[in-house]
């Protein structure tokens, strides 16, 4: 190369590097949302509280969204509730979304004091009293966590005026529960004080929510009281297929060394209850270990999926699939990529990962935008409108991503929505030379869908609730007119 050519090459490299930074697409207030085949229907600011788990429930002719919150932030530990005029620790937001274009904030139910993961009431599940075997037929029950110290059940038949029914307390942590509405069996993610792990499972019969009956404690051998040696990674959350499916899929790990554990539900409920290593091992059918780089946040089962590509095969036309979603926990890509995995568990004792999905980082320069980039969770509704056809993945600063999963061997992204930031959107920081360097970006934490086909996303960085619907070809994939 001649000197001038080298010079030109040097400038080109500098220009490209500079433009890469300039095109980092830092979000600014007032800029429109970014989207493909998804559009905004309505919003609620959720009183600028950090959103965790939304659950949408039909109550008569009303649709109510229950949204769990993390604790407050360093800057605002307890935001003011405009309805009461008081500062309240983050808890549960209850929003009437019957008209999704005009969500109506009904009630904030305060949670445990404490900031970020240490407080709030992050998780929420709903069961109708008439569905539960021994429930009050006029009641609608909300199971929620109360920070790390308790699980609570409230009657939310009048969602604007919840009534506390019962409390399961004395825990050192809680997390993402599962509650079977038809049996009342609940798999509560708890930290029993004498266990060696922060999060394990307490199986309860909550068929009569006023009188919880504990069935057993469950976890991995090595986590139980009195054991020694290495302690297996902690539970994040289970999903049960109930008595008919007779399986519970447990996700362990968050962003590291995770695995999917497949458990025989009947053996779990009816096996010997003493937490010995042998008794803990007994209900396990198989484990699918993940890389040390990834953890299992959500383990979403989709049994009996017909695979079009295999339609003419003599065997294996349908497959039992579990979608495993990792959780990104560090800001600005300071960890291995956390993403989405599909496991074929048709042969249960030989489960195998068959495909994966991530948002292409370069499509939005997401590592430079600020906050977390990576997967966190999927919708968990099994309503027919989307089940086994589409999955929605919350991806922090990349918003929500809509996947066509009809062929889980080849999942395809067909839409996305990244909300605009607002004045309420909180900053996210990384350390640079021992000093905080902060950026403001959307942090889509969780997503849920309802039977009508609306998609609900909530923001960890206090931007609130966004209600979305599919447009264009994405509607066709779901079969929505």
């Amino acid at each position, binding site marked *: 190369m001649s*000197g*001038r050519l*080298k*010079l030109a090459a*040097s400038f080109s490299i500098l220009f490209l590097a500079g433009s890469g930074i300039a095109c980092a697409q830092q979000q600014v207030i007032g800029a429109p949302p970014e989207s493909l085949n998804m559009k905004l229907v309505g919003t609620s600011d959720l009183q600028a509280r950090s959103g965790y788990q939304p659950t949408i429930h039909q109550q008569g002719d009303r649709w109510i969204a229950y949204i769990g919150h993390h604790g407050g932030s360093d800057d605002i530990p307890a935001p003011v509730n405009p309805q009461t005029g008081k500062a309240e620790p983050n808890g549960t937001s209850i929003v009437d979304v019957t008209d999704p274009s005009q969500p109506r904030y009904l009630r904030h139910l305060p949670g445990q004091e*404490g*900031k*970020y*993961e*240490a407080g709030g009431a992050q998780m929420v599940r709903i069961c109708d009293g008439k569905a539960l075997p021994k429930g009050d037929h006029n009641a609608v029950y909300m199971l929620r966590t109360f920070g790390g110290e308790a699980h609570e059940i409230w009657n939310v038949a009048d969602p604007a005026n919840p009534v506390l029914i019962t409390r399961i307390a004395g825990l*050192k942590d809680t997390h993402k529960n599962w509650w079977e509405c038809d049996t009342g069996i609940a798999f509560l993610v708890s930290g029993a004080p004498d*266990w*060696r*792990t*922060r999060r394990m499972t307490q199986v309860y019969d909550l068929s009569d929510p006023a009188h919880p009956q504990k069935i057993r404690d469950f976890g991995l051998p090595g986590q139980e009281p009195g054991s*020694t*040696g*290495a*302690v297996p990674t*902690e539970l994040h959350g289970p999903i049960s297929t109930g008595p008919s499916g007779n399986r519970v899929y447990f996700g362990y790990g*968050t*962003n*590291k*060394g995770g695995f999917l554990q497949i458990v025989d539900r009947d053996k779990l409920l009816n096996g010997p209850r003493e937490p010995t290593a042998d008794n803990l091992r007994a209900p396990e059918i198989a484990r699918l270990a993940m890389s*040390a*780089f990834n953890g299992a946040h959500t383990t979403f089962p989709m049994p009996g999926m017909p695979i079009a590509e295999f339609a003419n095969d003599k065997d294996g036309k349908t497959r039992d699939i579990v979608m495993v979603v990792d959780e990104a*926990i*560090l800001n600005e890509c*300071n*960890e291995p990529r956390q993403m989405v995995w599909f496991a074929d568990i048709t042969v249960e004792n030989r489960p195998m990962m068959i495909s994966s999905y991530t948002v292409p980082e370069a499509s939005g320069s997401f590592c430079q935008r600020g906050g977390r980039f990576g997967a966190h969770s999927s919708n968990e509704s099994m309503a027919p409108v989307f089940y086994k056809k589409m999955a929605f993945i919350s991806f922090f600063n990349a918003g929500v991503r809509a996947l066509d999963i009809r062929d889980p061997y080849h999942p395809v992204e067909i839409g996305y929505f990244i909300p605009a930031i607002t004045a309420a959107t909180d900053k996210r920081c*990384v*350390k*640079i*030379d*021992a000093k905080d360097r902060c950026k403001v970006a959307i942090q889509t934490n969780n997503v849920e869908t309802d039977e009508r086909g609306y998609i609900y996303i909530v923001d960890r960085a206090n931007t609130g609730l966004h209600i979305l619907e599919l447009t264009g070809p994405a509607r066709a994939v779901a079969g929505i007119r």
Partner: protein
Amino acid sequence: MRRWPVIVSAIVALGALSGAAAYQHVAPRHHERTGAWQEIAWPFPRDGWPAGKAFRCGATACGGDIEVYVRPKMGFCNCDRGVADDDEVDRVADLDLLSQHFAPLAPGDVVRVADMPGRIRAYDLKMSDSSRHAAIGVAVSRRCDLLVAVVHGKGEASEVRRIALAFLATSEMTRWMTAAIEGR
């Protein structure tokens, strides 16, 4: 025009020099360390956390071989509570890198390392060759990040602990651990 390449090269060279200087500033320097401790290669296979630093102190200086493995673990859910109890030390202190089989010798203690609060606990470690070692697990935190150290040797646990804590308290190690937890 021909001055530009020189200017660009100078900027690059200065950047490289300042980077090297910064590295020199935070990395433990061999010649500064007492002869007792030698840095050795991180001996463990890759796991979920990046490798840390490993050091050995020989029998002459430490009364028996003692090894220390220390590394930051960035991202830890107990941002507010920190290392809350002994179970936390059991879980996070990298004892399982040495052996899956370890049993605590006693309840742990509160400790402060590199100005970070946490806990320290002594263990009986059963190695793969069935030999027994004393091990010390240390876990301290700053906000949402952990710094962990695991130490093992054939001597008495109390002596291994004393020697290891003295080593972790040296200015070189303090400087390195502080830099590591700050992501430098």
